């Protein structure tokens, strides 16, 4: 039965060595660029209020981070200059071939960069750790949808999106919002086609999916990196406007409340830090387990981890 070998690691020793090498080449890359390694708390009194990310924790014990973003931005506001971090993050309810509730994230911030300049640095990092393919393609969100789903995500009607999504669970489907259909088309039609050979950057998302990025007209200044159909990284030209940040947090909290989801407290310290001033910067988070999985040709993220969620 399944249980017998459960004390054993989910990765081979060979993979664990490749993992250590990946981590040290990532560190060497940032050392050479004089980006400071930082180490922020995993347990916080605040949590993300992102509509689609669930935190572990509760109001009295605190919350495990789903990303080190808030603490790192507070460091930037305090004048840290360029910083990076390799840390574990936790997301409830995420498990599957490419998901493990606890996973390892590389996150870094570059003052003075916008999302385009940061894309170039992501590409340089990937080359430095051994991913080949010069000049990763950069595809706008709109062009990717036109190419792989045959529709303009900004102009298509709700009806067109619904038809393209071929979502056959009809429960409440009428009430779902535009972004729901876009996410579905991204998950099943567009994403799996991206980066078949070399990695591809997808950039300029709809403003409704801005998360913590700057909005420019109807565009959110964000990018994601895809390789072999799998999303590897998510980067923002970071929102620095404290009032706008507070408004987004509150709007996400209202949405969560309306959906009867848990509504954690958002990070007041981040708002205070932004009021003090965040330098113009871009930041990106990259899943190291997934990167290792693709570099090593492994079937799932569990095979990159010492002990995956089912045996942790």
């Amino acid at each position, binding site marked *: 039965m399944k249980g017998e070998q459960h004390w054993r690691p989910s990765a081979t020793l060979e993979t664990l060595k490749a993992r250590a090498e990946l981590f040290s080449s990532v560190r060497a890359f940032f050392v050479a660029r004089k980006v400071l390694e930082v180490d922020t708390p995993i347990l916080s009194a605040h949590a993300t209020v992102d509509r*689609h990310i669930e935190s572990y924790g509760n109001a009295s014990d605190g919350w495990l981070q789903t990303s080190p973003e808030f603490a790192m931005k507070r460091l930037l506001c305090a004048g840290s200059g360029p910083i990076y971090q390799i840390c574990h993050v936790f997301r409830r309810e995420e498990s599957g071939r490419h998901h493990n509730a606890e996973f390892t994230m590389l996150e870094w911030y570059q003052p003075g960069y916008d999302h385009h300049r940061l894309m170039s640095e992501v590409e340089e990092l990937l080359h430095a750790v051994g991913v080949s393919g010069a000049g990763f393609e950069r595809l706008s969100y709109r062009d990717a949808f036109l190419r792989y789903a045959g529709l303009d995500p900004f102009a298509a009607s709700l009806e067109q999106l619904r038809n393209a999504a071929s979502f056959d*669970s009809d429960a409440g489907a009428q009430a779902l919002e535009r972004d729901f259909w*876009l*996410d*579905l088309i*991204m*998950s099943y039609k567009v994403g799996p086609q991206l980066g078949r050979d070399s990695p591809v950057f997808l950039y300029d998302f709809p403003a409704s999916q801005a998360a913590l990025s700057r909005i420019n007209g109807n565009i959110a200044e964000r990018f994601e990196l895809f390789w072999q159909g799998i*999303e590897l990284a*998510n980067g923002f030209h970071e929102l620095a406007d404290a009032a706008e940040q507070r408004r987004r947090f509150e709007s996400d909290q209202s949405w969560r409340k309306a959906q009867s989801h848990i509504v954690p407290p958002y990070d007041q310290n981040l708002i205070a830090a932004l009021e003090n001033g965040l330098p113009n910067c871009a930041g990106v988070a990259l899943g190291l387990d997934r990167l290792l999985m693709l570099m090593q040709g492994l079937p799932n993220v569990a095979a990159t981890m010492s002990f995956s969620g089912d045996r942790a």
Partner: protein
Amino acid sequence: MATVSTNEMKSGTKVLIDGIPFSVIDNEYHKPGKGQATNSIKIRNLKTGRVLERTLKSGDTLEVADIEEIEMQYLYNDGEFWHFMNPASFEQIQAVKAAAEEASKWIKGEETCRVLLFNGVAIGVTPPNTVTLLITETDPGLRGDTSGGGGKPATLETGAIVRVPLFVQQGEMVKCDTRTGEYMSRAGK
């Protein structure tokens, strides 16, 4: 009513959709970087065997189907119903033709079959993996053929038709695999 959420659905989980029982074959989690998570499940209709895919929002639930598979002994059929008995309790149940039809061409009585019950009603019958049956009709084969290359059709006592080697004759017992519908060997008289 018991329900099961998308993150609890595993291969073999029985769910109910529009009153029809399905068995989960595969469940895959999808999530765009920042967005709605969904699960695509591959499911088999337990009544028809048809496989289809459904997409659910992660965290959505489906009703659990009351499905049970038990070993029962086949007794007889009366043309309308196929009758089975639980060898432990001696309780008898009947399966309608639609549920027993596939299995019926392999069973003649006393075989231990697996009966699939949905809300206590038989919706499927799986015959033993192998059965030994009498050939009631086949053309005489050519003398000297031992390899079975090509073969010929033979009708078994239960009505199944299998391809047998040319040297196998009417009146002989043969062992067959019910999963593939193929002849395996002669079984002696």
